């Protein structure tokens, strides 16, 4: 990198860097390192932590509840990542050649859930899903589908999709907006050329729009995957992981082990596994989606 005209001596440069970095080190990076250390101990929050090495991790990987949590998280990724991605990209392709005003209005409505606090959304949806007086079941009864009116958040089979749909609702407008900017970045002459060549809308989408949107697809996947692994607020306010572990995810399990059972070492181990999982998936997305986009563009 070329030296900027503003560069000075290293001591004076540090004046700019130090306040932010110190605060970050003390309240984010330090605790991350401490969580790593804590995960290697057995600790009840009161007595002196006891070193157990990788014991917590060994326990986790022979714990059937942890596997249930991981499997639930994997299933939730359909609702957190796949559905918003597919819906978002389809909608972006439909919306982008509408008139500016109509596009803006649709965008405003579809994006609205994304700015809301997920904890409050969980509370709102718990009410919508209420079996007795919730609007969702009332709507089903009103349109003659009363036999499908279920106690959604209490039903072992339907609770995971019921919670998942909320995540899809939360994310798909956000995905659409990112894809819309992506489409606007694409050189319009490519679309014109396709039109001249007589390509159908579907062909244009699969051969021009989709391949050129790979960078945006990567970003969307990355953000939604991270969101799915850190999912806590929404599930905590709707089901707390129940019924019978049907919506248990690692972070809810971590909360139960740590703040309800005072097994802080085991809880920290779950947190670290979650962080490692995020890195691994992040790396995989960079390798898979990243390299392909380079090949095309």
């Amino acid at each position, binding site marked *: 990198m070329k030296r*900027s005209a*503003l560069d000075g001596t290293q001591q004076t440069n540090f004046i700019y*860097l130090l306040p932010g970095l110190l605060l970050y080190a003390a309240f*984010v990076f330090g605790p991350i390192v401490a969580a790593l250390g804590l995960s290697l101990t057995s600790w009840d929050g009161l007595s002196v932590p006891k070193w157990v090495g990788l014991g917590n991790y060994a326990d986790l990987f022979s714990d059937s509840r942890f596997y249930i949590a991981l499997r639930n998280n994997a299933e939730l990724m359909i609702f957190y990542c796949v559905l918003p991605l597919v819906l978002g990209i389809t909608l972006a392709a439909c919306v982008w050649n509408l008139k500016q005003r109509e596009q803006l209005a649709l965008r405003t409505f579809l994006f609205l859930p994304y700015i*809301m606090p997920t904890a409050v959304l969980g509370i709102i949806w718990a009410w919508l899903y209420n079996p007795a*007086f919730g609007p969702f079941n009332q709507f089903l009864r009103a349109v003659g589908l009363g036999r499908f009116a279920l106690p959604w958040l209490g039903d072992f089979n339907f609770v995971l999709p019921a919670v998942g749909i909320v995540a899809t609702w939360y994310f798909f407008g956000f995905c659409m907006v990112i894809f819309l900017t992506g489409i606007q970045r694409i050189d319009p002459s490519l679309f014109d050329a396709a039109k001249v060549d007589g390509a159908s809308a579907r062909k244009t989408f699969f051969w021009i729009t989709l391949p050129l949107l790979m960078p945006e697809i990567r970003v969307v996947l990355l953000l939604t995957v*991270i969101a799915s692994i850190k999912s806590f607020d929404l599930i905590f306010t709707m089901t707390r992981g129940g019924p019978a572990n049907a919506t248990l995810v690692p972070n809810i399990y971590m909360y139960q082990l740590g703040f309800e059972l005072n097994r802080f070492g085991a809880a920290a181990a779950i947190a670290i596994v979650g962080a490692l999982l*995020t890195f691994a998936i992040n790396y995989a997305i960079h390798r898979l989606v990243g390299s392909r986009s380079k090949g095309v563009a």
Partner: protein
Amino acid sequence: MSRSSNIPAAALFLRLVLWLLAFVTITPFLLLLLTSIKSKADVLKGAFALPAYPHFENYVDAWNAGHFNIYFWNSIIVVIPVVAVSVFLGLLTGFAFAYLSFPLRRTLFAILTLGMMVPAEAFIIPLYYEMRYLGLINTYAALIIPQIAMSIPFSTIFLASAMQQLPEEVLEAAVLDGAGRFHILRKIVIPLMIPAMSTLALFLFIWTWNEFLIPFILVNDDAYRTLPLGMLFFQGRYTVNTPVLTAGAVIVIFPLILTYLVFQRRFIAGLTAGATK
């Protein structure tokens, strides 16, 4: 049927579907608003039935019973310093990463981005004990300081990349005129950064206002709860009284909807700039 008459019909149908979807998306909010002005008896008539007259007293009840006077002010007391200090520190750190040389630059940058990927859930336990050791549990500082620290990676990266797009010649000219760096930062860089800074401030406002985990774990005294937390405890007590519960939810999300509608263009532009960088 000829192709030319077929296409407008298909386009019209598509637009109809899009608007229907938009309507379905905001339906939860509309139902929330409708239910919040009903009486308890109206609720029993059905979720979609209109009340005879609007019962605004639900809002008064929710505000009083839900301690919203406390939670609302707490949210404001927390969000203002978090946004102001985060933008200020982001400017300094961003300035360093944009223009200055220092050892371990790449390592420090990697450590910063780590903080954007690792969720707060992963380090909340050590953070809780650190705050307890510092005697900050159940104080405003517990709500403010960690949120500033958590926002530093995004603020730094967002502002550094915006600063790198400033014309280098302007800065060089100022250096040649003999202006000091603090002076250049204050008189030249900051004025040029106003749009980026206000977008960043908007994001930090929404994220801080919506934060759940930090106040949930680091504060258990009612006097320091913020709005999303207040809503959780409010839910516990008012599950049966739906109109008052929904009025409470409207109170919590109303400032967000207002902010969003006022700044929505800037919001979306900033979001995509921040996300795809």
